């Protein structure tokens, strides 16, 4: 049983599985939003987590003090996602019946005094937060390892947990993409959201139907490409950033086949049975063309197929920037699958300029 879970938690399966369940959930959003579903899911999660915690290897990773916040994060992420969708679906149903959303009922639009309604809530939150932090601090000592030693690197050397999604991307992209370009684009993309999303509906209340595309793509990035990668980076990556199942001992000598090859090698050596051309651009022309196609012809194709309506309502600049951001976001799962299925290392491999894609 544990061997099966170890095997299935490999990103090839777990990532595919979670994508499948994500879109299944989006499709049957009313089911996910129901209290019955939440209760069953909660019981299942508790049982599975409890059972997994019986395993000493898994437990030792989970209760490592700096990993404890991730457990809180996971609990909050699962709860907040369900709760927001739950409230959104209720509002969807109300609006379908011609009623205003819960937040917009005459009763809730009424003005109340900040004192005591708001101030007392804040006081309660401050007390609860203080108690929580003090209890946490008493129960868990802040870890301190051996003094800094620049000559001896621990294995694995991990960034703080909130950056582990980025560190996990390093498996699939070079640092200039995973460590610099993508983070910058994430920040730029987040700031750009209100300027791209011109849908006037869904402002100031929980909803789903009114903002199907916005919420689905945001949840996809947030849950699958950020939170899930943090989970993998924290719990399933051991020495040498090798994959380890949740019950697998972190044996630094675990051997992993390093048989990833570049697109140029696949094309020239495997396919044409020729040596690699000396000229870099001749060697990498296929990869360069593919990347160019990804950012030029793919948008054109998407626009032809589904985008006309949005192109007109959003305007050109907004529309193409959105397509650029979505394609960049999707380049990560794309590269992941290329790695898993055809052992592709780089689409464009130009170490001469440190330009590897």
């Amino acid at each position, binding site marked *: 049983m544990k061997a099966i879970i170890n095997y299935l938690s490999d990103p090839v399966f777990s990532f595919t599985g979670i994508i499948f369940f994500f879109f299944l959930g989006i499709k049957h959003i009313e089911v996910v939003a129901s209290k019955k579903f939440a209760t069953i899911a909660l019981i299942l999660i508790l049982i599975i987590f409890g059972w997994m915690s019986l395993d000493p290897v898994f437990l030792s990773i989970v209760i490592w003090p700096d990993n404890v916040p991730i457990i809180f994060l996971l609990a909050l992420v699962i709860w907040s996602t369900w709760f927001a969708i739950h409230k959104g679906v209720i509002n969807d149903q109300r609006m379908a019946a011609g009623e205003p959303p819960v937040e917009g009922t005459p009763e809730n639009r009424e003005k109340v005094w900040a004192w005591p309604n708001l101030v007392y*809530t804040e006081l309660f939150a401050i007390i609860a937060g203080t108690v929580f932090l003090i209890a946490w601090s008493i129960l868990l*000592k802040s870890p301190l390892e051996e003094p800094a030693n620049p000559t001896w690197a621990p294995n694995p050397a991990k960034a703080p947990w909130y950056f582990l999604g980025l560190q996990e991307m390093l498996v699939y992209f070079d640092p200039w993409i995973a460590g610099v370009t993508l983070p910058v684009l994430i920040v730029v993309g987040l700031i750009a959201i209100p300027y791209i999303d011109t849908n006037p509906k869904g402002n*100031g209340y929980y909803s789903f139907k009114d903002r199907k595309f916005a919420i689905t793509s945001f949840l996809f990035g947030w849950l699958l490409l950020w939170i899930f990668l943090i989970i993998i980076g924290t719990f399933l990556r051991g020495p040498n950033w090798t994959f380890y199942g949740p019950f697998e001992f972190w044996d630094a000598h675990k051997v992993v086949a390093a048989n990833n090859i570049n697109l140029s090698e696949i094309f020239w050596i495997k396919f044409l049975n020729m040596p690699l051309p000396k000229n870099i651009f001749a060697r990498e022309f296929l990869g360069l063309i593919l990347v160019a196609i990804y950012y030029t012809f793919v948008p054109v194709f998407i626009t032809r197929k589904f985008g006309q309506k949005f192109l007109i309502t959003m305007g050109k600049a907004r529309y193409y920037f959105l397509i650029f951001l979505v394609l960049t976001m999707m380049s990560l799962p794309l590269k992941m699958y290329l790695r898993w299925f055809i052992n592709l290392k780089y689409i464009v491999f130009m170490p001469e*300029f440190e330009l590897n894609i």
Partner: protein
Amino acid sequence: MADNESFVEKVSKTQVWKSIFRHGPPNNARNRAAVVAGNVFLHLHPIKLKKSGVQLGYTWCMGGLTFFIFLALTVTGILLMFYYRPTAEYAYNDIIALREHVPLGIMRELHRWGAHAMVITVWIHMFRVFMTGSYKPPREFNWGVGVILLVLTMLLSFTGYLLPWDQLAIWAITVGSNMAKATPFLGNGGPGAAFAKIGDFALVSDKNDVRFQLLGGRFVGEAALLRFYILHCVFIPVVVAVLIAVHFWRVRKDGGISAPL
């Protein structure tokens, strides 16, 4: 003075009390307005607001908690500064001393777990704001300010990570700051940097690229410790404090906590 007046009533009539609180108890409309408008801290709030905006089910209180944790981290951080010297010679020993010599001391724990908690609450706050569509007009700009604050929160946490000067700290920062090396054109291992040269002389080398500027050296050493200390204790908190002021001000000016139009 009547004998049946309670102690509280007596105190609230003294000159000292009246000089501090210029209004009666907030149990009628006039005083409830006065208590919020007349207090520098409470006046962050509007005097009245829509009922939906005060419901925990709507706001989750995550933004407020983030601000509270920021304040708690400021207090615990200042206390820690009394005992901590940011040099390679003393830093680690000062942390040991905090652990060994302070009976029942939990300041470092409060600071560390609080920092983790702040990253979490700020993420969940952003998630809530997204799910309620609260970034939509007229709040577009404030969403952008919030995203910058989110990045600064993570940078605060990241710069603080180095300060204990243990193996975890130095290597986590090494992994993180190695990314800067790959910055296009500005990092000596990044694409384009190889073109920036005059003859054989490289303009972007490991002695002047962005990573060097960040660490004040070619590796995570004493200069990096001092830089991260100042970034962590002074520079980023000041920027964050200013942006929090902008953020709160704009929440008010953009119509308060979002509600259906």
